[in-house]
């Protein structure tokens, strides 16, 4: 049996793809459905979209819950995508680590801001 614990634990290479691959697809489908949901609500409002109609869409509890889920989905989806980009083009490990940290901080900060906006309503 191969040793795969402690300092010999493998954290790159094979068997580390399936979860993220599937998560990217699932989050993509969720976000596509959310787009349709918001689009439907926007297109089915009579007349011009003013502040009341627009913010009204996001003021109900169920819409806030769904939007919150989509925000988290976007973060995971974008993380997998950007991690793939860094992985494909940046070979030096130190540079790639810095870029991955930047990506995570960027995404988490954006998500925090978006959630804050959503719950101010």
């Amino acid at each position, binding site marked *: 049996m191969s040793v795969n614990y402690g300092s010999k634990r493998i954290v790159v290479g094979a068997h580390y793809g399936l979860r993220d691959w599937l998560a990217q*697809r699932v989050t*993509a*489908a969720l976000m*596509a459905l959310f*787009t349709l949901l918001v689009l439907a609500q926007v297109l089915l409002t009579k007349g011009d979209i*003013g*502040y009341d109609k*627009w*913010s009204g869409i*996001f003021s109900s509890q169920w819409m806030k819950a769904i939007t919150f889920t989509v925000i988290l989905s976007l973060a995971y989806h*974008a993380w997998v*995508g*950007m991690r793939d*980009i860094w992985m494909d083009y940046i070979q030096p490990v130190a540079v790639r680590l810095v870029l991955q940290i930047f*990506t995570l901080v*960027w*995404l988490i900060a*954006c998500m925090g*801001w*978006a959630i804050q*906006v959503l719950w*101010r*309503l």
Partner: protein
Amino acid sequence: MTEIAKKRPVFRNINALKDLPTYRLPVAGWVSILHRVSGAVMFLLLPLIIWFFDVSVTSEISFSRFSSVFQVGVGFIPAWFVKLVVLGLIWSYLHHLCAGIRHLYMDTHHAVDKSFGHQSAVVTLAVSLGLTVILGAKLFGLY
């Protein structure tokens, strides 16, 4: 195993500058690389997107500020530049969405052949660019 390990050639892909302008990428290849580019563009402009959401949804006053950004600009940035950036975002989202749906279709139908790859790539470009033109015309006030 030989005593001395044979010196194998190292390929660092530095022919990219020679290959990229000369290699003819098939349509499916364009859709693919633009899928990646559009994703990266949206990632970089994410704070702007969230700022738009913030300003548009917070209050009546901030909503009118949101509208004015598209009419008179913000700070030293003119309105037409804002609209141009938003057009880029619209294209990025539409292309990423259409190419993504194409990906999901290919993931769920295991019998996908080369001609499907070509046809679906053409459809992806047609739909995404077409919708971009339609929404862009609305954005720039053409109708």
